[in-house]
Every structure is written in structure tokens, then in C-alpha cells.
């Protein structure tokens, strides 16, 4: 999550050191008029390690108060001082990638073996969003961003994100199912076919499936409880004025 010291300063992650690097192309360079920041370029097929050094530039006080006073502005005079003085280009590095053309990813540059490498597109977009999350940029009318994630075909999303998860969950369900079937059989003597005919066993099966689906991490139990409470909280706030009436029961607003 981006956090900035007020007012907006060009805070960059300090001392980034990329130890690992994926096989993806990724080219990013940052321009800066001051010498305090540079980022080495990584090459193609690069398993190069890229390191960048960044320093913070502290802005002084709130722009409102700054009206007109920022002349030691070799550095700053950042466009936040909206008082009509010549606004110098802010020292925030902007996102640059050679495959990002005209506000969207140029799919022609993602070709691999004659077909579009959707995995690379996903990775590139992930990087772009991560970059912008850490360094928000001004939105521009000259170069509007028009990228829509739905251009990546649905089967790619399934292959990349859903299938590994599904495999995990199915594995869990299978293990639980096998163990419970054995356990119930050893206790009651009812085999698998007999168990399936029993209502209680079918209920247990349903609970197990729902549990595997919704409770994937320990925190999920808390989250689900919070969600349930949250979904009716607003209703309760609206009905509060009716509670002090001496009438029994609760009103079912929703």
C-alpha cells in the first residue's frame, strides 16, 4: 500500500535489490533531473540482477502554505504548489515499458511461437499495477490508459490461477473424504454405498465440501464471521430508531 509523507514526495522504495529475476522481459528506466536516483536497465533474456538505489526527497510543508514561496526550486517546485508559478516536472518516476504502447499492452510484442504469450501479459500488468500502487501517477488525457483485463482470454486465467488452487482443494477434499469414509465404516460398518444413502452422512459430506471451499486459511474463519456481521450491520443502524418503541420482535427490513 502506498504511503507518502505529506505532501506528496517522490518516495521510492529504498535499496531495492533484485535477487531473483524471472525470465520475463522487463525494461524500466527512470528519468530524474536530480542525480539521486537511477535504476539499471536489465537486458533481454536477462537473468541479470538489477539493483537500484533511491533516495527520498523530502518536500517541505503543505502546498497550501507554500503558495509562491518555493523558489529554491532547483529541486522541487513540484506541481503541487498550484499557485500559477511555472510548474516544474515532478520528480516522480513514471512507469515506462517498451511494450506499453498507447495506454495498453501491445500484444504484438508478446508473441511467442506465433501465438500471444498471455502469461507474459499477465506478468507485465502485475508489474505495472505494483509500480503504480507504490508510485501513483497523474492520470493523463494525452495518454489515457485503456487496458482492460478482459482481453486476456478466460482459459488463460483458469489455467494460471484457478487450476492450481482447484488441484489443492480437490486434494484436500479427497483426503478428507477417504479418511472420513474409512472412519465411519470402521465405526458403523456401513460401506461407502450405504453411507451415501444415509441423510446424516450426506449432510456431513456437504459440510466437508463447503468447508474445504471456504476455509482455505486459518484467517478465513474469522473473515467469514466478520462478513456475516457486516452484511447486516447497516440494516441494524437503520432500524435503531425503531428499537426504542415498545413493540416486540425485530423488524425484518431486509
Amino acid at each position, binding site marked *: 500500500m*502506498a504511503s507518502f509523507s505529506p505532501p*506528496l514526495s517522490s518516495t521510492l522504495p529504498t535499496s531495492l535489490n533484485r535477487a531473483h529475476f524471472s525470465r520475463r522481459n522487463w525494461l524500466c528506466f527512470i528519468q530524474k533531473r536530480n542525480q539521486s536516483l537511477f535504476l539499471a536497465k536489465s537486458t533481454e533474456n536477462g537473468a541479470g540482477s538489477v539493483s537500484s538505489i533511491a533516495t527520498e526527497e523530502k518536500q517541505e510543508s503543505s*502546498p497550501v502554505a507554500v503558495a509562491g514561496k518555493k523558489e529554491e526550486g532547483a529541486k522541487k517546485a513540484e506541481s503541487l504548489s498550484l499557485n500559477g508559478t511555472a510548474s516544474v516536472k515532478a520528480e516522480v518516476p513514471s512507469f515506462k515499458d517498451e511494450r506499453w504502447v498507447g495506454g495498453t499492452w501491445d500484444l504484438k510484442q508478446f508473441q511467442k511461437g506465433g501465438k500471444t504469450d498471455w502469461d507474459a501479459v499477465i506478468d507485465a500488468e502485475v508489474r505495472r499495477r505494483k509500480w503504480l*500502487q507504490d508510485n501513483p501517477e497523474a492520470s493523463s488525457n494525452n495518454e489515457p490508459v485503456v487496458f482492460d483485463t478482459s482481453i486476456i482470454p478466460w482459459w488463460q486465467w483458469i489455467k494460471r490461477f484457478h487450476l492450481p488452487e482447484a488441484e489443492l482443494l480437490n486434494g484436500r477434499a479427497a483426503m478428507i473424504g477417504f479418511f472420513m469414509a474409512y472412519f465411519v465404516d470402521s465405526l458403523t460398518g456401513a460401506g461407502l454405498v450405504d453411507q451415501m444413502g444415509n441423510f446424516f452422512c450426506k449432510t456431513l459430506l456437504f459440510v466437508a465440501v463447503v468447508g474445504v471451499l471456504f476455509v482455505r486459511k486459518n484467517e478465513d474463519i474469522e473473515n467469514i464471521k466478520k462478513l456475516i456481521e457486516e452484511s447486516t450491520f447497516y440494516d441494524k443502524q437503520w432500524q435503531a430508531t425503531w*428499537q426504542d418503541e415498545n413493540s416486540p420482535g425485530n423488524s425484518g427490513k431486509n
Partner: protein
Amino acid sequence: MRSPSKAQKIKNKKSKTKMASLTSTTAAAVAGPARRRSLTVRASATSVKLSGRPLKVAVVGGGPAGGAAAETLAKGGVETILIERKLDNCKPCGGAIPLCMVDEFSLPLDLIDRRVTKMKMISPSNVAVDIGRTLGPDEYIGMVRREVLDDYLRSRAKAAGAEVVNGLFLKFDAPQERNGPYRIHYNHYDGVKGERGERRTIEVDAVVGADGANSRVAKEMGAGDYEYAIAFQERVRIPEEKMEYYRERAEMYVGDDVSPDFYGWVFPKCDHVAVGTGTVTHKADIKKFQAATRLRARDKIEGGKIIRVEAHPIPEHPRPKRVSDRVTLVGDAAGYVTKCSGEGIYFAAKSGRMCAEAIVEGSANGTRLIDESDLRKYLEKFDKLYWPTYKVLDVLQKVFYRSNAAREAFVEMCADEYVQKMTFDSYLYKRVVPGNPLDDIRLAVNTIGSLVRASALTREMKKITL
């Protein structure tokens, strides 16, 4: 976190299909209080008939709620006194009013400075989507200056027979006996020398609290507190060429940098723009969020000059108690601001009017004393009429303002024409119209798809470090 988003997806799907059958189910569910209501014995028809004088009501606060209430009361034959502390107040406000308000309150069109017909939604990664393609030639969001609107409504109340007093409400004394009067203490400023004003008291039969988010009437009647957002806004005068871009366009920026639970905006006013943001949970960081909003809009407001900085609380939900004996609240004082969009002007004016109508009816045009049951009728009517709107916006806020991933999905969804049409229909006319069920299903599928994609990307984002 995967599970919450999955649970959200299911909830969202339910809410989308819910929207389709919203009118039927909620109407039935909402009839709850009405059914209870018919069992109570107290009926205003048996209340005391006032001899020789009409019902006297004090409306505290002269904004849209107070002005609308006072006008309807005066028209209904009730003796009304409207107490406003600052007659030229420029309340910090977005200033957007829906089309239905212009119709329902017969507002003259020259009250509206600008007609916004295009809105731009900008996601955390600066994906920009224009909405407004589905608007008809006569449809727009009206931008008004609060001082102009408030003054107009007050002048209408005055023309209808209400007495408009420049004064600051201090407190009221509860009645000594069952049908006794409320004694109101206020500082009278009209034509009085010096700043302090003159302390006066008047006796009235009922009090309508329309004095806004920091309502004193609410405090006096023990209405309880609510959560509120801080909205912070800077008015910026930008060069003419840049103003042209905003001639009919408003912008909405979403993102964690701009606000963790609300949005940042650039709204055009008469000859300048208002750049602002708001938050409920991180009020201490509001300046940081404002700086981030200015950064996001930087290229478009470059060279602008800040002419005014203002901030105001916005209620998030109604107060626990909105009526107490013969004192009731309307507008922001009651907490009638929607979630997600933060809209309050229309609901303030409408609640003021509905409250006044209930008082006029309960008092048979000012001839009888009213009691709490009459005021509860207004609450019931208002809750029943607008509950679907409030609930839908609450669900939208919970789903789409949750995280950057959800906001990306939100902006992506806004590109869909059906979404735009539904959004504007429900905003401009305040009705939740169930559309074609097939379209609703397609919308649900697309929404879930967007949310899934966005959250998948966010999970990947967590794994990498730049």
C-alpha cells in the same frame, strides 16, 4: 486473501440478482414496521385540538432540509419559524443534485451552474473510463452552489408564510406537561448590534432539527452519535483551457492512495473546480490523501490557484434515534447520506418535505397538536421509500471500495453500457428499476469475472517486489 473475495463474489452475485427482484422482496420485508404500526392505539385523530391558534413548529437550520420543511409546513397552514445561523453560508459541499430534485422541487434552471453529462472514473492504475454515453440529451447531473440553492429554498419558505430568523439555536427545554410547549433558546442576530446577538426564547409545539451533521438539536434530544466521514475539499481556479475539459465533466479517482474507503473527486463549479477527497477510517491522513488526489489530477489542474480550502463531516448512517416525543431530525442531522456516492442534498430536501407533510397531516392543517406517532409516520414513509437505494449503495461500497483490486474491477465494470444505464437511472430518478433478467445475469457474470481477475492480479502483485 482469497476466501473473503470468494464470499464477496457470492454475496455480490446474490445482490445482483437481488437487484432484479428488489422491489418485490424489500417491499414485503419493509412492510414490517407498518404492520406493527397498525397495532398501536395512539391515534392523532384523538389528539388535542388547538383552540384559537395554529400549530407552531420551529425548524432549526436553513439548508435544503430546513428550507423544504419550512415551505411545506407554511403551505399547510402551520405557523413556522426557521432559525438559521448564517444566511450567506457557503456550506462545503460537492454540490451535485439529481434530475428528480429539479422536478420535484420545481427548481428554476438558472440555479444550476453546470450540467455534468460525462463522468470519468479513474482506477488505481489510472485506467480511465468515461461514463455518460447512455444519457439522453435532457439528462444531466446538476452542479449548484450551496449558497444559491439554500437561499432560494429559504426564500420560497418565506414566500409561503414562514418566518425566517437569523439566529443560533442553543437549547430547548422539554415540555413540563404532556401537551405543553417546547421552549427554545437561541441567539437572535437579526438587526442586533454587536456579534453576540440577543438571547431570546420562543415557545413552539414541535421542533424539526435540520441543522446538519453537527446538529445541536440531535444532541439536545439525545439522538445518539453516528460514524462520519471527513470530506476535505480545495477550490482551485484553473486556466481557461483546462476549465474547458471540465465544462461538462466530473472526475472520480479511486485508489488506496486517494482514500482507503471513499473516493477523490474533481467537480466543476461555476468558474473553478473543487478537488477533494474523504475518509471515515483514516481521518488523520486526510491531507495526505488530498495531496495524492492532486497528484492524480496534476496534469489537468496544473497552473491552478487554490482559492479556498474547506472540510466538513458527512454522516455515514442514520442516528440511533431520529424522533423523540415532538422533536425529530431531517437531512444530515438525521444522517441520510448514502454510502458509495455520499449524496445528501436530495435526501435532505425530501426528508424535510416528508416530515413537514406528516406534521401537516397529523395536525389536520395545523388545527390539532401532533404527537410522536405522526413523526414516526414520516420516518416510516422515508425508510420504506428509500431503503432499497441505501442498501444497494451500501452493498456496492462494501464490495467495490474494499481494496485496490475491487476498485480496478469497479472501474472495469463501469465501461459496460448496461451498468452505466442502471447507475444513472438509479441516481437521476432515485428508482431501482429491475432490468431485463438476462442482462442482469450477464452483468453478474461480468462483475464476478472482473473481481476474480483483479484479485488474481493483486495476489500476484503481493508475490513480487519491484
